């Protein structure tokens, strides 16, 4: 425990997200990301302890499950359940899908639309694969999917990250909600991209025999959003 916190005190703090501090370090010569879930002082200590532990475990489990199925996620190097630190591969030469979409939208390349659609199809396929393994991500946003080697066209590969809210479930309901969460994050982060998200869902549907049931659930969940006949 002491060793980890001492180690991190000398590390480069990359960012403080909503629930963890992210550091960039070298571990045995490898570029490494450390995700430290620190105590949240606003919540009851008992609740905080349970959530922090549960999420560290869930994140590790889901990453392993994805990697075993050949779904790209960072390699895990070391987990410390005392200080709630996960040491994992630093996906070098990558950017978030969020930044990449923004970049493509700003470019005036004639292939802009083609590139965006290709990316959306890639994401749809990846998520279908993940759901086929019964992994529910729980926090799908375009910030939580990395693009390795962006710009290298067909050579670029997507990597899923941030599995803290993930869990294992085979229910179409859970998978539908997973897509619903992504849909809202996607459309609020990237305004006016409805056709693009439609492409993503099409690709999801084509990539898995179990997708139809999930999409039907998604339609159901959309109607549950209480006041959202959004024009905005």
């Amino acid at each position: 425990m002491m060793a980890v916190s001492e180690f991190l005190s000398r590390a480069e703090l990359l960012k403080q997200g909503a629930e963890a501090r992210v550091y960039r370090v070298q571990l045995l010569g490898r570029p490494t990301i450390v995700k430290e879930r620190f105590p949240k002082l606003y919540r009851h200590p008992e609740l905080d302890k349970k959530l922090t532990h549960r999420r560290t475990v869930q994140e590790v489990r889901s990453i392993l499950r994805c990697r075993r199925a050949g779904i790209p996620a960072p390699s895990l190097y070391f987990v410390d359940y005392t200080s709630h630190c996960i040491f994992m591969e630093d996906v070098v030469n990558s950017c978030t899908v969020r930044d990449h979409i923004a970049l493509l939208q700003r470019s005036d390349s004639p292939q802009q639309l083609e590139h965006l659609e290709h990316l959306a199809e890639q994401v749809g396929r990846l998520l279908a694969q993940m759901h086929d393994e019964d992994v529910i991500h729980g926090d799908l946003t375009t910030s939580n999917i990395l693009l390795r080697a962006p710009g290298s066209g067909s050579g670029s590969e997507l990597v899923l990250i941030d599995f803290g809210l993930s869990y294992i479930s085979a229910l179409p309901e859970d998978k539908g909600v997973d897509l619903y969460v992504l849909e809202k994050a996607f459309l609020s982060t990237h305004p006016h991209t409805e056709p693009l998200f439609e492409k993503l869902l099409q690709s999801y549907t084509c990539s898995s025999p179990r997708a139809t049931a999930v999409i039907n659930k998604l339609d159901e969940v959309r109607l549950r959003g209480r006041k959202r006949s959004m024009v905005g």
Partner: protein
Amino acid sequence: MTVVIGFEGSANKIGIGIIRDGEVLSNPRRTYITPPGQGFMPSDTARHHRAVILTVLKEALDQAGLKPADIDCVAYTKGPGMGAPLVTVALVARTVAQLWGKPLLGVNHCVGHIEMGRLITKANNPTVLYVSGGNTQVIAYSERRYRIFGETIDIAVGNCLDRFARVIKISNDPSPGYNIEQMAKKGSQYVELPYTVKGMDVSFSGILSYIEVSSAHKMLSSGQCTAEDLCFSLQETLFSMLVEITERAMAHCGSQEVLIVGGVGCNLRLQEMMDVMCKERGAKLFATDERFCIDNGAMIAQAGWEMFRSGHVTELKDSWITQRSLCLFTTWRTPWVI
């Protein structure tokens, strides 16, 4: 100078407020209170509003020291909310607008809360947590629209509190949420309840069924915990979820301000937890008290004032109401960049 009168009655409060250029001249309100164990039904609520609305209107004008001729615009809540009470209040607003010969303006209830919060707290570009009996949303402003980043995927947080109060027969006077807050101060034992955050969304129905179906009465009768402990644990759980999704939205948008609006927003424990989170991030919390958090007429007047000044009016034939639907397009604010 622009003077706007606002009529609000989308749920169990009926309020009429008058605003003159950012100054609240009057803001009287009545609440329809039901016996313990019961919620408010639309038709009974509408009957209550019908019975008192003219008294409240007279109070609003008298306290402001104004005559109908001094009013420039009549704003009313167009929705979302309960159908019958909305219809009742819209009808009165339409009638006085015609009697007084003043333009009419339909206002979105949620935008009313946000604009009132901004007026009172002077928050500039906040991430807004809107929490009430019917709504639970995390909203941020981008590209001339209020955008919903997170929300409940089933029931609202206030609805969860109200229905919990019904299960263990807590009084609805002055409000179930207020009474839960007071009882929670005497609770000490933390009872674990379901905790459901999905991305920036939350779900409360699981907590409610957990309490309704088995736990509450069993735990209380076996002496495992007290009603106060349950209130305490419920608040800790619900509010942790709300603070968490607000923080997620802030991290997502890079925002450094939080504004809490809506009836549940006057809960001091929620404000305290949000404040701790903000301090950890170097952000700033803005909140208001029960006068403006809870549904009131001034908030409709304030949003109406903004809209009227930017050239909006609602023609009589368009002065309908809606129980759902949230069109959050705004023309009176300059776009912020997130």
